[in-house]
């Protein structure tokens, strides 16, 4: 009974949320890196997953996607298991997880975003190619379509992966540190595309590590340090107190001082 009182309306929200996590615990064989986390992503908004190094940000995202198998917990997208909604979810992995010597060109990568449409046997037709080129256009990479991916700069590589996600026509975009190691021009290009997606009514969730840009880029924040620290609109969840709770003393002299 007390449980039900503690979380009024939780289950209703989980039914409609593009991504709802309940009681998620993940371990890579040792102590849990994510412990008993609840998260309810708000539809049509941009949410930043923020927390110190090793706080389980990427792990949380990977568990949501089914890439990492959790010890416990339930994850739903629009009220159904994530695996059944995968056509509506696009994922942009961390740049470091890719083998950049792999023999694929930029356009090949974007065409992979259309896998659901192409399936096993359907041929790649001019209209697929044009749609892929349009996605590249949106991230300013049209001129690079025939380059092998290893020949791109870090920022360009990140934009190509965003283009692949765009090609999927998804409703929920999950990005793992999209701004890590990219130049300023790429950062502003990516954020412009993400904001445009949000304005079309799509939902964005990004693991983010740069605290100074959280307020400018995102609507909502999910603060994590192994457990959920705070969740909500930037104005209420991203405060000196919650940051102190997530980062401990590590942040006291720098960022929080400037905010105070």
């Amino acid at each position, binding site marked *: 009974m007390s449980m039900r009182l503690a979380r009024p309306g939780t289950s209703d929200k989980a039914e409609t949320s593009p991504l709802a996590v309940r009681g998620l615990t993940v371990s890579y064989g040792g102590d849990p890196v994510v412990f008993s986390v609840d998260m309810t992503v708000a539809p049509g908004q941009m949410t930043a997953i923020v927390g110190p190094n090793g706080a389980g940000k990427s792990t949380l995202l990977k568990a949501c996607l089914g890439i990492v198998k959790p010890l416990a917990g339930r994850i739903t997208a629009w009220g159904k298991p994530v695996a059944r909604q995968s*056509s509506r979810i696009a994922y942009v992995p961390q740049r470091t997880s890719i083998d950049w010597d792999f023999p694929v060109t930029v356009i090949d990568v974007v065409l992979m975003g259309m*896998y659901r449409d192409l399936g096993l046997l359907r041929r790649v037709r001019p209209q697929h190619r044009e749609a892929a080129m349009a996605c590249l256009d949106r991230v300013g990479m049209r001129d690079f379509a025939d380059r092998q991916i290893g020949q791109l700069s870090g920022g360009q590589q990140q934009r190509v992966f965003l283009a692949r996600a765009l090609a999927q026509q998804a409703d929920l975009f*999950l990005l793992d540190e999209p701004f890590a190691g990219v130049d300023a021009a790429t950062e502003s290009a990516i954020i412009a595309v993400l904001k445009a997606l949000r304005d079309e009514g799509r939902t964005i969730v990004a693991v983010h590590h740069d605290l100074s840009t959280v307020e400018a880029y995102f609507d909502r924040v999910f603060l994590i340090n192994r457990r959920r620290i705070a969740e909500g609109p930037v104005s209420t969840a991203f405060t000196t107190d919650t940051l102190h709770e997530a980062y401990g003393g590590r942040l006291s002299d720098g960022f929080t001082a400037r905010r105070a």
Partner: protein
Amino acid sequence: MIWQALTLQLGYNAALVALGSAALGIAAGAVGGFLYLRKRSLVSDAISHATLPGLALAFMVMVALGGEGRFLPGLMLGSALSAGIGLWLVGRMTARTRLPQDAAIGAILSTFFGAGIVLLTIVQTMQAGRQAGLEGFLLGSTAGMLRADALIIAAGGAAVLAAVLALRRPLLMVAFDEGYAQVNGIGVARMDAALMALVLAVTVVGLKIVGLILIVALLIIPAVAARFWSERALHVVMLSGLFGGLAGYGGAALSATAPALPTGPIVVLLGFALFAVSLLVAPSRGLLAAALRHRRLQSRVHLRQGLLALSRGEPVYEAMTRRMLRRAGLTRPDGQPTEAGRAETARIRLDEARWQALRRSDTLTDLSSRDDGLTLIDSVLTADQLAALDTTLAPRGAT
């Protein structure tokens, strides 16, 4: 004789064997291409060695049942079963313990092969069934192969190839970015299992021709040779199939010229020849191309640096630079610039001044990242931009 062998003029059976071997090679090359892209090439070694106990046991069972011990489909089934068990054990060991995959492969490979050799020795002491011939499965032997066997091999190769073609998209996506593939609804574990099943099929089909010790070469060598020629995964896979087919065809045809010649080693040597050629002459990734590229870059750097020094009236320190300037006709033997050298020097000086102006300009400064010391600014800016930039140079240019 060799020419006749390659053009299929050594009789109907030899031709059939060569074609079956080609089909096997194409299938092995294509499967090997994906195996290489997935970075699992070594698993094929475990699979192939793990076939041996099953092969010997199948022989014993068939003889015990009063049948022909060398009945190929039966031997293939036995090999597939024991290789499947070996593969399953490698997977379990990797998943359940902290052993890295290469260690698990090493353990399984040697254990199964050892057991297989013991069983093979027992087979050789058996009275029943003409034992001679089972060792042929170690290194491959096409001598005295039955027509039905060749047909089975060709059909097996074709079936594997069709399966690879059908699965090419999910296989590629898993190889490139398994997280993304998973999110797209492709079962990574299922796709890996399918790839392993294809490798297993190639191994079992290829036992008779290439032999279980060397089938690995037919899976790996064509793929790494093909990688030299293309930056697109599906082209790599297709080319790998082509290379595998050539090696399989040539190996079977050549070994038909001398009955004592084992087929596997010849297939492998042909594959290696294709690899060596690729390594040397492939454009862009090949050794010759790389050396040529290095030479060209080196000479551009030296010439530009030498001209820069000349334009500033400084001495050229490096002997190599002096030599290159002289050879390009830009300096005289005494080190003074020639007519052409002076023109080049002026051009370089203008280029340097323009780059400097670009770095200081308000509108074009973003392009300064394109300045690598060798790129001429004319190739970066439009004529209009260049004209605008030159107006900021004008005061100095006018004097």
